[in-house]
């Protein structure tokens, strides 16, 4: 395959990737769009393998086979509730690969430069051959790109591993706040840039390895300092970084396909992070720096009234009486694995001619769109599942709202109390419905640590206990 043909294949692959992402605009198109992505990937890999100067085919075949089987196995086995940690885990692999390829690029560059010095550049093949032709300015730029690729790759790698650990429950999801953590991060970044400068001045591989190690530490520390409910932003951000790392490597290697694809992924992650931050009314910087900004002026409003518990019998009665029911799922639903039970309940209520819908807040769960996937897994048809903007105006006409393991996203103080730490965050206006039942494990507060006045409202009742147990009990009574 000559270079022209390879480039043509790359163009086609890039277009297919764009189509694959664009196809996600609706559920039916998406099922076709994924094939664009797969074909694009196959085309890119085949074209690259056929490029003149690329050899070692047996090794490639073995590695792809092992990796493929591993990936296939994981993808088949994973539970939908584990999606957040799976995505985070996958990101770490891209990050580490970026670091490796960056180091390789450096080694190849040294080899090429030595060959040029020896006058044997003609014997070089592949990547080394292209480097040998570069001018000194181009080499300088190459080094910058290489530095960026390794830096971002290493942050993505360790950050994703920590995110994985937190999401999988292997690490505490509480935010770790070391004293002077901003200073630590700043110093570490400064160290990286100093090393990068040294590298540009001709220092050897050790600078890059040090950069990889320090950046890895930054990744760890950054993500450790971010609490559980901010994870949607973190995962989106890491998604974005893995894209930028690929793009940086694309620059290093002079490969447009990598650049285009990396930019697409980078943009995608950046937009997701933006949407998530808007959903919490927080700036990206404050999320990444961890913790809730304590900049609210004045004391918060006192909450009056009492939390009134209810029981399964009453809830069943209310469900029987209601014409329109809305469920509001949150992370607690995923923890309790209650999506199957709520789907069963939806079917039963629908069969009785009631209007049953789901209201999804943008940041519900630990991953953008987490709740949608869980409900889809439980076979809740997606046209019952509405976004916040679509359903918020309907709450006053709703007879019964059941909150399943959500807290901050239904907190009225975001609207009523300008001194609340979550003031201004868009929330689901469930309190406007006739009856609200909150299924909750205990009386604790949400992630933000803010008291939720919803629980004290006259039309709210608390249904204590595990969401799945409660729903199962309701299902049993419904028969």
């Amino acid at each position, binding site marked *: 395959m000559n270079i022209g043909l390879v480039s043509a294949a790359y163009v086609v692959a890039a277009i297919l990737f764009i189509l694959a992402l664009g196809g996600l605009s609706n559920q039916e198109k998406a099922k076709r769009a994924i094939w664009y992505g797969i074909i694009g990937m196959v085309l890119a890999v085949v074209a690259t393998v056929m490029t003149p*100067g690329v050899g070692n085919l047996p*090794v490639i075949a073995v590695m792809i086979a092992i990796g493929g089987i591993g990936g296939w196995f994981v993808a088949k086995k994973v539970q939908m509730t584990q999606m957040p940690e799976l995505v985070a885990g996958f990101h770490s692999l891209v990050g580490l690969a970026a670091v490796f390829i960056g180091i390789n690029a450096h080694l190849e560059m040294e080899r090429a430069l030595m060959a040029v010095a020896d006058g044997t550049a003609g014997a070089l093949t592949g990547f080394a051959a292209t480097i040998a032709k570069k001018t000194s300015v181009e080499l300088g730029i190459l080094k910058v790109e290489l530095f960026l690729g390794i830096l971002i790759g290493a942050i993505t790698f360790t950050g994703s591993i920590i995110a994985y650990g937190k999401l999988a429950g292997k690490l505490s999801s509480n935010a770790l706040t070391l004293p002077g953590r901003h200073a630590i991060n700043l110093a570490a970044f400064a160290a990286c840039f100093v090393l990068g400068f040294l590298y540009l001045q001709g220092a050897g591989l050790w600078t890059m390895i040090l950069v990889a190690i320090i950046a890895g530490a930054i990744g760890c520390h950054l993500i450790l300092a971010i609490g559980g409910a901010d994870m949607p932003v973190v995962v989106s951000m890491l998604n974005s970084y893995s894209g930028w790392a690929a793009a940086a490597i694309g620059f290093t290697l002079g490969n447009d396909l990598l650049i285009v694809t990396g930019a697409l992924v980078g943009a995608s992650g950046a937009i997701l992070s933006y949407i998530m931050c808007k959903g919490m009314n927080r700036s990206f910087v404050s999320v990444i720096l961890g913790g809730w900004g304590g900049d609210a002026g004045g004391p918060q409003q006192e909450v*009056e009234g009492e939390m009134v518990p209810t029981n399964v019998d009453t809830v069943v009665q209310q469900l029987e009486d209601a014409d329109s029911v809305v469920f509001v799922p949150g992370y607690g639903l995923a923890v309790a694995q209650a999506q199957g039970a709520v789907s069963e309940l939806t079917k039963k209520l629908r069969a009785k001619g009631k209007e049953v819908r789901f209201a999804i807040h943008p940041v519900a769960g630990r991953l953008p769109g987490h709740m949608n996937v869980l409900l889809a897994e439980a076979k809740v048809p997606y046209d019952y599942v509405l976004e916040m903007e679509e359903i918020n105006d309907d709450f006053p006409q709703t007879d019964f709202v059941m909150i399943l393991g959500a807290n901050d996203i239904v907190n009225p103080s975001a609207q009523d109390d300008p001194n609340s730490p979550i003031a201004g965050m868009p929330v689901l206006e469930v309190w406007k419905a006739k009856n609200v039942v909150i299924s909750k494990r205990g009386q604790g507060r949400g992630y933000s640590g803010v008291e939720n006045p919803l629980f004290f409202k006259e039309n709210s009742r608390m249904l204590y206990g595990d969401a799945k147990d409660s729903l199962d009990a309701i299902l049993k009574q419904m028969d």
Partner: protein
Amino acid sequence: MGMKVGIPRETVDGEKRVALTPETAGRIQKLGYDLQIESGAGVEANFSDEAYRAAGVEVLPDADAVWSGSDIVMKVQQPTMAEAGKLEAGRTLISFLWPAQNEDLLSALKDRNPHAVLAMDQVPRISRAQKLDALSSMANIAGYRAVVEAANNFGRFFTGQVTAAGKVPPAKVLVIGAGVAGLAAIGAARSMGAIVRSFDIRPEVAEQIESMGAEFLFLDFEDQDTGTSGGYAKPSSPEFREKQLALFREQAPDVDIVITTALIPGRPAPELWTEDMVRAMKPGSVIVDLAAEQGGNCALTVKGERIVTENDVVIVGYTDMVSRMAAQSSQLYATNLRHLLDDLTPEKDGQPNVDMEDTVIRGCTVVKDGEVTYPPPAVSTSVAPKAAAPKKVEETAEQKAAREAEELRRAGSRTTMLLAVGGALLLALGMVAPESFMQHFIVFVLACFVGFYVIWNVAHSLHTPLMAITNAVSSIIIVGALLQISSTNTVVMVLAALSVLMASVNIFGGFLVTRRMLAMFQKS
């Protein structure tokens, strides 16, 4: 071993209700209680002894057996003095009691030294207690029945009709007092097709009246002090009363049916429909006075009787509206009792716990351990309004338009700024960077823009599949590793091979998991 709950037959004349239905029996047994009922107690409400037996209730031959053999006695009407004498020490009695009007009865009950006496008419009017609010259940039935009685005595259709034989105008119904009974009456009259008007001295119920489909008669009166206590109206000032009567006088010749439901707790019913109003009504009109028991809202009402005035207006003063629908009222009342037992027995072990800390139970309990505990300390019915919650200022259309124009202008100038700065930066970069870099850089910037527009169109519900697929796609980094794998340097080769391995995990895993997720999204 659960306690025994007994239901004697009602002894008051004309009382057809019963405090237990076979349906509620099952639910009460689930709480751990054993049930027994006097033979024939439910006959007048259409519940036979067989039906109770089938529900697992023991049927006892006479009232004495019930009174002496039950730990808890549940009744509808307040006990007679004779019945009070049958209450044994340490037992519990639940029924209507009206402790304010029946002090003798209360002290007689106290002297029997019972464990507790709970009055169903003393349920606090808070939302949590609605399910055991027997007064509301009974009022609802009375309101409905009032319309049925009115229709029965009214010689014409309720609904307007255009028939071959001519046009029939709809009946006009005036409901005075829009409490539970009034609202039920409005609903029933509306559903029969009448034009319904309603008046209440509490202006805040206007919304409820209108939501039931009636017209709220608005009384223009300044300086109204018509607050409520426990959900009931308070007596009004003489000036207000005059205005109110003037309003009714205006309505009298026009309306066909008047249903009055105005009650003030602990006082005789206010006289709202005077004699001259009755005389002003058309012949054949009907007045149903639901306040007949407390003396009636209409001046001419005779308690417990149906009378016809000189000008052929029928005035119905029955006091047993609820008992006239014994099956329905027994069912609701028994359910209220069941809910009370539910609250009394949180452990579901058949052992009632009269918890004086619980505001609902505290409110109902009028005698506890030989002491009169009526009246209960005041309970606030609703949460106090929040201290100075800042109200959002509603903006007018012009302000909104101006704000939007301003925002648009700002966004526009921001975009211009960004473009200028970005353009300048790119130019600066172009000055120093070599051509080969700029070529790639153009591709990069364009790809960012394409990505930006493409991703904004992705459905929110597909964000997780989006992350999974971008994850797979970002493994395009495999191309870089493939280009390096044929290097003669072993370290490079090994690192590249490892990168290929990791990227393939991602490619296969990412695409597969995306496919799995997308396949799950199904339309109804």
